[in-house]
C-alpha cells in the first residue's frame, strides 16, 4: 500500500529511488529461501562478469600462450606453483584458459541476446499487432525452428557463417548468430502472445478512439507493456546460450585455441585425458560451465517466482495494528497489495 499513500504535490517528475531499480527491488522484496537463491545466483553471475571484464589482470598467462621465459610449459603437467591448475594436452595453462573463457562466453551471450531480442521483439510485435497472413506465416516458421534440434541448427548456421574460418570475432559471431536463430522464436512467441493480449486491453482501444496511428500505438502503448517478461527469458536464455556455445565447441565447431579460450573446446580436447587419470584438464572448464549456468538460471528462476504474486513467499502477517492505526489507503485499491 505504500505506493497509494500520496506524495503531496511534488513539482515535476518524482525522483525514483534506487530501491526501485530492477534487481535491487527484487532482492528487497524476497524472503527466506527465495532470497537465498536469488542472492546465490547474483553472486555467481557477478563473479562471472567480474572475471570476464578483468581477465587480462587475473589470468597468469595469455589464452594461447605455450611458453614463457623458461621455455615451453609442457603438456598435461600436474597442478603446480607455476600452473595452479596444470596444463592441457596442447600445453596451455588451464587456469588462464578458464579465466579467458569467461570473456568469450560473455561476448557470445551479449551478442546472441542482443541480436535475438531485437529481431524477436520486432517480429513478435508486428506479427501480434497486425495478425493476418503475416502472423500465420511467421508462427509456422517459428514452429518449424522449434521442431529442429537446436544444436543441429546451430551447427548448420555455424558452418554457413564461418565457412571453416575461426578468427576470434568470426568464431564469436558464428556461435552468437547460430544461438540467435534458435532463440528468436522464443522472444517472438512471448512478445507476440503479450501483444495479442494487450491489443485487446481498453487502453489500446482508447488510443485507437483518440485517433493515434499504428506506429504510435505499437511503440508507446503496446511495446512497453509487452516487454515485462523479457528479463526472465533473458536470464534463462543466457544460461542456455552458454550451453549451446559449449556444445558447439565440444563438437569442434567453436573457436580455435589460438583465437580465444573456449570451455567446450577444452573439454573436447580433454576427452582422452579422463581415462588416463588426468582430471584437471576437464574438471575446471566443466565446473566453470556448471557454475555460470547455475548462477544465471538461479537469477532467472528467482526473478520469475518473484514476479508472480502466487509464487512469491512473504513474511507472515504481524499482529493487527492497534485500533486507530488503519491504513488510509487500504480502501482505495482493493487488490493493491498483489499488483506486481
Amino acid at each position: 500500500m505504500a505506493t497509494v499513500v500520496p506524495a503531496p504535490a511534488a513539482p515535476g517528475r518524482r525522483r525514483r529511488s534506487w530501491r526501485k531499480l530492477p534487481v535491487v527491488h527484487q532482492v528487497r522484496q524476497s524472503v527466506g529461501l527465495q532470497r537465498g537463491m536469488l542472492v546465490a545466483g547474483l553472486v555467481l553471475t557477478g563473479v562471472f562478469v567480474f572475471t570476464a571484464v578483468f581477465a587480462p589482470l587475473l589470468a597468469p598467462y595469455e589464452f594461447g600462450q605455450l611458453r614463457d621465459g623458461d621455455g615451453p610449459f609442457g603438456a598435461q603437467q600436474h597442478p603446480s606453483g607455476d600452473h595452479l591448475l596444470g596444463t592441457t594436452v596442447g600445453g596451455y595453462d588451464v587456469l588462464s584458459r578458464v579465466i579467458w573463457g569467461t570473456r568469450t562466453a560473455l561476448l557470445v551471450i551479449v551478442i546472441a541476446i542482443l541480436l535475438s531480442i531485437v529481431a524477436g521483439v520486432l517480429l513478435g510485435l508486428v506479427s501480434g499487432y497486425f495478425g493476418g497472413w503475416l502472423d500465420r506465416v511467421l508462427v509456422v516458421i517459428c514452429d518449424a525452428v522449434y521442431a529442429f534440434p537446436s544444436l543441429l541448427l546451430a551447427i548448420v548456421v555455424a558452418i554457413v557463417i564461418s565457412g571453416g574460418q575461426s578468427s576470434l570475432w568470426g568464431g564469436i559471431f558464428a556461435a552468437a548468430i547460430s544461438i540467435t536463430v534458435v532463440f528468436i522464436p522464443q522472444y517472438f512467441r512471448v512478445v507476440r502472445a503479450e501483444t495479442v493480449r494487450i491489443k485487446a486491453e481498453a487502453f489500446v482501444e482508447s488510443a485507437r478512439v483518440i485517433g493515434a496511428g499504428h506506429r504510435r500505438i505499437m511503440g508507446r502503448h503496446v511495446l512497453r507493456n509487452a516487454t515485462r517478461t523479457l528479463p526472465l527469458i533473458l536470464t534463462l536464455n543466457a544460461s542456455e546460450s552458454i550451453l549451446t556455445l559449449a556444445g558447439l565447441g565440444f563438437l569442434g565447431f567453436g573457436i580455435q585455441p589460438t583465437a580465444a579460450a573456449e570451455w567446450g573446446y577444452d573439454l573436447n580436447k580433454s576427452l582422452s585425458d579422463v581415462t588416463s587419470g588426468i582430471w584437471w584438464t576437464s574438471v575446471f572448464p566443466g565446473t566453470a560451465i556448471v557454475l555460470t549456468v547455475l548462477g544465471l538460471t538461479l537469477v532467472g528462476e528467482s526473478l520469475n517466482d518473484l514476479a508472480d504474486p502466487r509464487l512469491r513467499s512473504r513474511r507472515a502477517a504481524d499482529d493487527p495494528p492497534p485500533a486507530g492505526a488503519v491504513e488510509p489507503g487500504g480502501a482505495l485499491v482493493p487488490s493493491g497489495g498483489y499488483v506486481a
Partner: protein
Amino acid sequence: MNTVVEMTDLQVSFATDAGTVAAVQGVSLSVQAGEVLAIVGESGSGKTVTARSILRLLPETARTRGAVLLGTKDGSRTRDVVDLSGAELREVRGEDAAMVFQEPSTSLNPVYPVGWQIAEGLRAHGRLSRKEARAKAIDVLRRVGIPDPETRVDHYPHQFSGGQKQRIVIAQALVLDPGVIIADEPTTALDVTVQAEILDLLRRCRDEFGTAIVLITHNMGIVADLADRVAVMYQGRIVEQADVRTLFASPQDPYTQRLLAAVPRLGTGVERTRERAAAREPGWAEATPVVDARDLRIVYPGRLRRPDFVAVDGVSFAIRPREVLGLVGESGSGKTTIGRAIAGLTKVTDGSLRVLGTEMNGMRERAFRPVRERIGFVFQDPASSFNPLLTIAEAVAEPLVVHGRAKDPQAARPRVDELLEAVQLPRAFGDRFPHELSGGQRQRASLARALALQPELLIADEPTSALDVSVQARVLELFDELQRELGFAALFISHDLAVVDLLADRIAVLYRGKLVEEGTGAEVLGAPQHPYTQRLLASLPVPDPDDQARRRREWERLRAAD
C-alpha cells in the same frame, strides 16, 4: 431461535509486499437461525473477508484473531472455527455453513455433470450410497427450480444459463442442509431480470429450508428486498447494525446516511429532463442529428460453420446536438456494440449509421481519423483503460499530441491541468501513475481525457458500473455538470435504469439486439409499453423495504402472467 454464527472481536490482517494490512478490525456479529443478515459496504471495506472467515476461506497470508463460533442447525453443538484443525474444518464446511460465490460460471467445474458436483458434498460427508446421493441431488435441483431435474442432473455446466448455474450453486450449498449460507454478491454477475429470480430463490431458502443467509452486497436495493438485518461496514469496522426497516428509515451513522443518499433512485430524473427540454431553443428538433442510425445491423461472423451472431438487428435512433441518450439493456443486448460502432471500433454490417456527417457503413480508417477528434469515449473499466506505464498527465495529453494540438506531453501540460481541474482532480495527480489513483479518480481522469479535444459527441460505456455507489454518485454528478457546461451530445450506455434515468434526456431500451422502446424518462419509466421494459422495471430492486415489498408483489404478478 438459536444463534448459528457468533463472531466476537474478529480481527484479520494480511501480509502484503508493503507490510501488514488490517482488513477487519474488531468485528462482532451474530446470525440467528432463519434470518438474512446483509453485510454492506464499499469495496475494500472488509465485508467479504468477514463473511469468509466464518468458513475460514482465507488466503494463507491471512492471520485471524478473535472467535467465530459456528453452531449446527439444530443448535446441538458449537465450535470455534478459528482454531479448528484441517479435518474438523472439513467436517464443518458444507454441513454447518456453505458458500455461494459471485460468479456462477467459474464456481462450477466444467468437466463434471452438475449432479456429480452436488453429490460430491454428500459423499465428502460420507453417509449416502451413490444412488441415494443422486436421488438427493435430483430432489434439491427440483427444489431450486431447475425444470426436468431427472435428465438435467446429468448435464454439464455449459448447458445451463447463467441464472440456472447460480441456482445449481445454491443447490450445492443447500444439499447438506447447512445452518447458514454465505452468499458473496450472488447476483452481481447476473442481469437484473435474472437477479430478481435468484433473490426470490434465496428468500425461499430462508422460508422453506430455514437456512440463515449472510448476504454480502453493495446494492442497497437487494438489501431492501431480501435482508432482515443489516450490518454496514466501513474500513474494516462495523459502523452500524440495525434491522432493515430501521436502517432505511433512520440511519444513525454519517457513513450510512451518505451511502443511502448516494444510491440512485428511479424517477428522480423526470423533473430535470423536463427543465432541460423547456430550455431548448425552438429549431432544436430540426437540427441535424449528431448520430443518426437507420436500420443499423451489426453481425459478428460465425467461425467454422457456426451461424453468425446478430448483435444489433435493425436499430434506428438519433442523437441531436446537446442531447443525452441513455441506452439500457442486459448483457448481450448489443448496447456496447452500438457504442463501439459509433466510435469506429466495430464494423457496421448493414443499414446506415451517420456519425457527425460521416457514413460508418464501409468507413475507411483514414477518412474517419479527422472525425475522431470530435468524439470522446469513456470506457467501462477505469483500471484497464489507462496505459499503466504513462502518468495521468501523459495519458490525458495523448489526444492533444496525436492531433497536433501540442508538440509533446510537457507542452500540453497547461491544458491538462485545466482539464484535471474541470474534473475536480488536484493538479498534482497528473504526475501519478494510474494504479496510484482510486477507481473513481481514475474514471474522472478518463473523463478528462475524453473531453481533452472538446468533442461534440461523448460515448460513455457503463462508466460507473465498476465503481462503488458513493463514488458513482460523484462521477454522475460531474458528468451532468460538464455536459451542461460544455454542451456535448452524449450516448450513455448502462444496464442500470436508475443511473440512466438520472442523466438521460431520452431512454432507449435494447432487448436481444432490437430497440423495443424509446422515449423520455417519464414515458419509458412511467408507463412502459413493451413487456420486456415492464419486466425490467419490476425486477429492479429499489432501496426502500416497504416500497420494494410492494414492487415484489407486482413482479410476482407479472411473472405469473407470463
